């Protein structure tokens, strides 16, 4: 009942999608895409932006046929009760697994880069506990915190980039497509695991104040993310060189640590990392929210908060057990994450859309 009252402005939805994608995109992708695409990483990021945009377009096309319904409800309407619930349960699994993966990415980052002696469980459990509060307050609150954080992100992006502009060797971006187009495509496929997460627009769609702006929302969010990543790739290539980027685990962190403003202002990374942690906090909250939301949908509960604590415990337990080591996590993100996300972000909406078109033809004919 509560969810029907949620109203999200277009700007809030844009900020939420931006934060949702950027928060984990700044960790592994710069290095992994560089490993595949070399100095053409920025082209890969652009292409994945295009993939993300087409997913946004598809999801909006699907949702606009069923006004007032989100992706899960559309599933129930088009596929019938049983299959619809099955799809809904699939989405629940997707969200809970993604929560666990994101939480682990966060704690792995903290442990590898700053606090090696702290057990991962501490990061995981604390982060999930904090996120629970935001989830408890609801989607609107999560939207509003992402709205608040997006301006500092842009300011600090400029702040860390400007002092290093004169060090960038733009000529090192040439030649383009040195190894052909295949590595570039593989890189863009890897990163489309992130841009595809803009399909969450399909979950937000019924709550939008102006649903007719949905495509615009998705476009701005994807454009911002792609711009951020392309700018990051150009700077990393121009300053560190793609060979070095590919060998670093968190190249953007190394990049931030290089920044010196004048001779007196250096070691800025705590400020930047503070913002990154905040971004990840929002993303974790959002995914816990959606896992709670989808389980409410599947079992027809009155309130999504009913299963919040068990879900949080499940996410915390999963985040500690699904991967045996940081290497396994990296391997998963490198090879499996993108198909995994694309299946739910592209595959299922495409299937639902096809079914709804077929249904229309059948009923008309």
């Amino acid at each position, binding site marked *: 009942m509560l969810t029907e009252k949620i109203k999200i402005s277009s700007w809030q939805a844009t900020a939420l999608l931006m934060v949702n994608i950027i928060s984990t995109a700044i960790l592994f992708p710069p290095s992994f895409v560089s490993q595949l695409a070399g100095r053409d990483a920025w082209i890969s990021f652009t292409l994945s932006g295009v993939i993300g945009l087409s997913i946004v377009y598809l999801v909006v096309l699907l949702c606009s046929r069923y006004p007032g319904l989100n992706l899960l409800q559309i599933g129930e309407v088009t596929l019938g009760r049983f299959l619809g619930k099955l799809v809904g349960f699939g989405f629940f699994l997707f969200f809970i697994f993604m929560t666990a993966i994101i939480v682990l990415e966060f704690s792995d980052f903290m442990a*590898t*880069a*700053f*606090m*090696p*002696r*702290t*057990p991962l469980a*501490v990061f995981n459990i*604390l982060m999930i*506990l*904090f996120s*629970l*509060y935001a989830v*408890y307050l609801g989607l609107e609150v999560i939207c509003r915190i992402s709205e608040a954080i997006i301006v500092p992100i842009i300011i600090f992006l400029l702040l860390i980039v400007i002092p290093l502009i004169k060090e960038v060797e733009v000529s*090192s971006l040439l030649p383009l497509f040195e190894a052909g187009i295949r590595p570039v495509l593989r890189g863009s496929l890897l990163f489309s695991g992130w841009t595809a997460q803009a399909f969450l627009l399909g979950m937000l769609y019924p709550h939008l104040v102006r649903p007719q702006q949905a495509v615009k929302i998705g476009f701005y969010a994807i454009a911002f993310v792609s711009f951020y990543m392309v700018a990051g790739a150009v700077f990393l290539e121009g*300053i*560190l*060189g793609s*060979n*070095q980027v590919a*060998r*670093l685990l968190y190249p953007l962190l*190394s990049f931030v*640590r*290089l920044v*010196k403003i004048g*001779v007196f202002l250096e*070691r800025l990374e705590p400020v930047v990392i503070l913002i990154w942690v905040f971004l990840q906090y929002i993303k974790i909250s959002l995914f816990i929210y959606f896992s709670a939301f989808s389980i409410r949908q599947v079992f027809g509960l009155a309130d999504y908060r009913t299963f919040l604590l068990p879900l949080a415990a499940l996410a915390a337990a999963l985040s500690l057990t699904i991967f045996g080591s940081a290497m396994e996590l990296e391997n998963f993100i490198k090879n499996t994450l993108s198909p995994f996300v694309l299946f739910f972000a592209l595959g299922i909406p495409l299937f639902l859309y096809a079914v709804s078109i077929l249904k229309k033809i059948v009923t008309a004919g």
Partner: protein
Amino acid sequence: MMNTICKRKFFLVIILLPLLLLNVGCWDREELEELAYVMVIGIDYLPEEEKIEVTTIISRPFAATMQGEGGGGEEAEPFHLITTQGVSLSTALEQQNAFLARRAYFGHNEVIVVGEKLARQGLHLILDRIIREREVRLGNYLYVTVDDVKEVLLSHAKIEEGLAPFLSEWPEGAFSSLAVDMDIRKFTRSMLDEGTDPVLPLLSIRTEAPISPKEAELRGQVSPEEGLEKSLPEKVPYPQISGTGVFKGDRLAGLMNINETRGLLYMRGEANNSQEIIEDPFGNPGYVILTVLRSRSQIIPFFQDGLPGVLIEVAAESEIC
């Protein structure tokens, strides 16, 4: 209504309580006075034992403040040197704990000096370990030296307080016309990228008395009859920049002196502040001296008679002085 507000507050308190844990930094808390701040790392290779030798300069902040207060007693150096050996850089650094009650902290390290033997053996022995170290920054300056690394680290810098500020301020300082400035980032980049090989500024020591003989005489510290050598203060080693070490991949391949380095700097388009002497263009006796303000270079490869060649075009903007 009341009930939900109470519930929320209870929830909030439950969630905020673990936040207190974060204030103490969990397992990774660090106390400022429990760290040993490494200022300079010197690394060399011992070919007979096949071991890495590490020398670190560790700051002693207490010594510095005691001197400031005129603390009396023995006058302590504000730095402390530790030399250890090990099969790899990690094991050598681990050995340093035998001499330290504190944890060595590399976050403030700004300079790494590499010995010639290690450079000839290849920097791959240490570079990976340094880049993966979470405290060392990629902006640390790298130097190569043909002298003994320990002696270089023991040398006193003029004007600056110690070797660390000398070596870390030198690249940003006035005379970049004498050598290239190189940090880990630039070095690794030109090592890994195709078509480029890295260079490092060459460091050497020169032993001389802190005051020149002439100056000592003027000050009246020595009378001419006594003879200069006898009463002059003891000779002390000083670090100086004396050229460039040229690498092939990660191995030192050769050395350049200051004049050759000047040519290299023109090729790299980095010859700023360089003084150029040309004959008077109007035919008058004497010279004109130019200070290069900024220079640019362009490398144009070509084929002539089936042989590859390179044309380097240098454009410089200078000031007559």
